[in-house]
């Protein structure tokens, strides 16, 4: 019963982490894709969480090439698919 957490702002991460189970996934959207290039971001997450970031949001901000290899860029179609594959979407 895994959730997809949809995070759209960096400052909401602390609350998101309280509900983010290690079997859940996280997708960074909008300006929160800045986390994908932030040095200490990944180590704040529980081991095992799959992390995605929207490709267009990264590219629009010039961050696609700087994105950590541990973070998987998603097309909009893949974003829709991930939202349907999870048991629910939790938008922060």
């Amino acid at each position, binding site marked *: *019963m*895994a*959730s997809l957490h949809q995070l759209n702002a960096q400052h*909401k991460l*602390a*609350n998101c982490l*309280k*509900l*983010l*189970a290690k079997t*859940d996934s996280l997708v960074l959207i909008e300006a929160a894709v800045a986390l994908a290039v932030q040095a200490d971001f990944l180590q704040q997450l529980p081991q095992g969480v799959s992390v995605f970031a929207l490709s267009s949001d990264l590219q629009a901000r010039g961050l696609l090439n700087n994105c950590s290899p541990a973070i998987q860029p998603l097309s909009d179609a893949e974003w829709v698919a991930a939202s349907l594959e999870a*048991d*629910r979407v*939790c*938008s*922060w």
Partner: protein
Amino acid sequence: MKASNSFDLLVVFTQPPLTASLAKEGLDLSLVNSTFEQQTGLIFLGAGVLQLHPNQQPDILALKGTQAMLQALGLYDINQLFVDEQALLDYSLTTADLLLPTESCNPLQLQKLLATSRNVLTF
């Protein structure tokens, strides 16, 4: 913790009282959800635990506040309120201090509430 909880909708409050009209809009939705016979659970997360702080006087700011709506939850059969154990510590509170009866939850318990609910909205 009532381990068998499974809500149609989990409403998560994350902000202190009188942060825009977020809490009011989350409570409006909770009450309407209940009138549609949907099981509703509420989580007070992080600074959201302050929503249940006693002695609020929103009228001092000419604002309405949510005290009356919180008191009405029971009339709508919304009795399952969960609070973030860590947030209580951060704000030096215990469940006994709060406006309504609640259950204090550790991270795994909070995560389980999410994992067993059909929908979730954060305010």
